[in-house]
C-alpha cells in the first residue's frame, strides 16, 4: 500500500563488515557512556531519609488549620464534603459550649471530621470550597499502611498542632 505521509525510513539490510562483526568498537562505545554517568551528579535520592522539595502547587495530605489564636477554623459547614467529587469527607457538627471559646472559632464546630485517604483524589476542590480557609492540602505524601480502616484520617491526624506545642 502507498504510504500517506512518506515519513517512513526504509532500512537497507546489508551484511556486517569486519569491524562490525568484531563487536568491540560497539562495546567500548557503550562502556564509555556507562562510565561517563559515574562522574555525573546523581538524579536519584535515598527516599525516606532524603526527601525532595515539593513544588509550590503540590497537593498532599490535608491539614485543618487553626487561626492566629490557636482556635480551630473549621465550622463544619459541609462545603468541602459537598464539593468532594470522591465523597471522601464526612463530618459531624456540634455546638460550642460555654468555656470552649478558646478551642473553636465559631459557635459551631466539627466534632468529628474524617477524610478517607483511599477515596481522596487530591484534587484540591475542598481547599477551594472552604469559606473559612480551614483546610489546606499542604502536607506530605500520605504514608502507606496495612489496613483500609487506617486510611480514614480523623481529627487527631488532620488538625494542626496547637501553637503551644509548636513553640515548645
Amino acid at each position: 500500500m502507498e504510504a500517506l505521509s512518506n515519513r517512513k525510513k526504509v532500512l537497507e539490510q546489508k551484511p556486517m563488515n569486519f569491524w562490525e562483526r568484531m563487536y568491540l568498537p560497539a562495546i567500548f562505545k557503550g562502556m564509555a557512556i556507562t562510565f561517563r554517568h559515574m562522574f555525573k551528579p546523581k538524579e536519584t535520592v535515598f527516599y525516606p531519609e532524603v526527601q525532595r522539595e515539593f513544588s509550590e502547587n503540590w497537593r498532599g495530605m490535608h491539614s485543618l488549620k487553626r487561626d492566629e489564636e490557636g482556635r480551630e477554623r473549621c465550622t463544619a459547614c459541609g462545603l468541602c464534603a459537598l464539593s468532594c467529587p470522591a465523597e471522601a469527607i464526612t463530618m459531624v457538627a456540634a455546638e460550642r459550649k460555654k468555656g470552649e471559646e478558646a478551642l473553636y472559632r465559631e459557635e459551631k464546630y466539627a466534632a468529628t471530621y474524617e477524610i478517607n485517604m483511599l477515596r481522596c483524589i487530591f484534587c484540591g476542590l475542598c481547599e477551594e470550597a472552604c469559606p473559612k480557609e480551614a483546610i489546606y492540602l499542604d502536607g506530605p505524601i500520605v504514608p502507606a499502611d496495612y489496613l483500609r480502616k487506617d486510611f480514614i484520617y480523623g481529627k487527631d491526624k488532620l488538625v494542626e498542632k496547637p501553637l503551644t506545642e509548636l513553640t515548645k
Partner: protein
Amino acid sequence: MSDKVKVTIDGIAVEVAPGTTILNAARQIGGDIVPPAMCYYSKLEGSGGKCRTCLVKVSKGSEKDPRPMPKLVASCRTTVMDGMEVENITSPEVVEARKGVVEMLLINHPLDCPVCDQAGECSLQDLGFEHGAAQTRYEFDRRTFERIDIGDKIQLHMNRCILCYRCTYVADQLTDGRCHGVIGRGDHAEISTYIEKAVDNDYSGNMIDVCPVGALTDKTFRFKNRVWFTKPVDAHRDCPTCSGKVTLWYKGEEVIRVTARKDQYNEVEEFICNTCRFDKKSTSDWVIEGPTAIRHDSVISSNHYETLKPLPVIQKNEKLIEANLEQFQKTQKD
C-alpha cells in the same frame, strides 16, 4: 364592562381580577419575571411592603391615566389597574434598585452562612446570589444583639433578622395570643418576647418556615446536618389539629427534621402544627408519598441518589473476602 383587568408585565399580558397586586399578577404568569419577595407572604394577611425587593417600574399607570408612576413601587402592595404596563427585569432601573435593596438588607446580616442552618434554603442567599454585589461598601460594625432564649423548640438569631415581620403575622393569625413582637425602633428594632417568655403555641413552629433567613430555626435540627446532605420526602399523617401534610428531611434512615411543604416561591402550602413538626420524628408515624420535587439548580438536589437508600459502595464479594481473609478478619475485630 368585564370584571377582569388587563395588565402587561415585561411585555406579557395577563388578565387578572381587580384588586390583585402586581406581584400576584406576575405570579400568575410565572417564570423569571416574578419579582422576588422577602417579606410578602401570600398566606399571611397584611404582609408585604417592608423589604422593598419586589420593586417594579410602572411605565403606564392605566388606560385612563397613562402617566407612569413617578417612583418605583412595591409590587406586593400596589394593585393593578386596567391597561397597566409594568417593567420588572426589562428595566435597568429596577435591576439597579434591587441590587441596592439587597445591599441594604445585607448591611446588618452577618456573614455566617457556614454556621447557619438555613443555608441552602435561604431566600436571602438566593437573592444575594442573583441580584447582589459581591462586596459591601459598609465600613461599620454590623448590629449585634444579645442572644435570648425563646423556648426549647425555636432558636432565635436576632443578628440574622431582616425585620420582615412574617413571624409576627404568623403569631397573630395562626396562634391565639401573640407573645413576641418587634421591639425598639430603627437600628434597635428586634424580634423579642419582652420578658424572655418562651414562645409556646400549637402553631408557633410555623415561624421557622416563614422566616426567609436563618433568624428563626428549628432547635431540634440545630447543627444536626446541612440541608443539602438531607433528603426531602413528602409524607402525611392523620393529625387532629392540622392537615398533616409535611416534608420529612431524611439523613440515612433517620428523620432529622419535619417542615411544611413549600411551593416554588418558598411559601408553605399548608401550615402544620407543632406536634407534627417537633414530636413525630420516626418513619412509622408517617405515610410516605415519595421524594419531594426540588429544583435541579438547588443545592439541595446535589449529591442525591434516585433511590431512597443508596446502594452499598462496596458490594459483598465472597471471592474477594476469601482471598483477603486475613485482612478482612483484622478489620472485623476492631
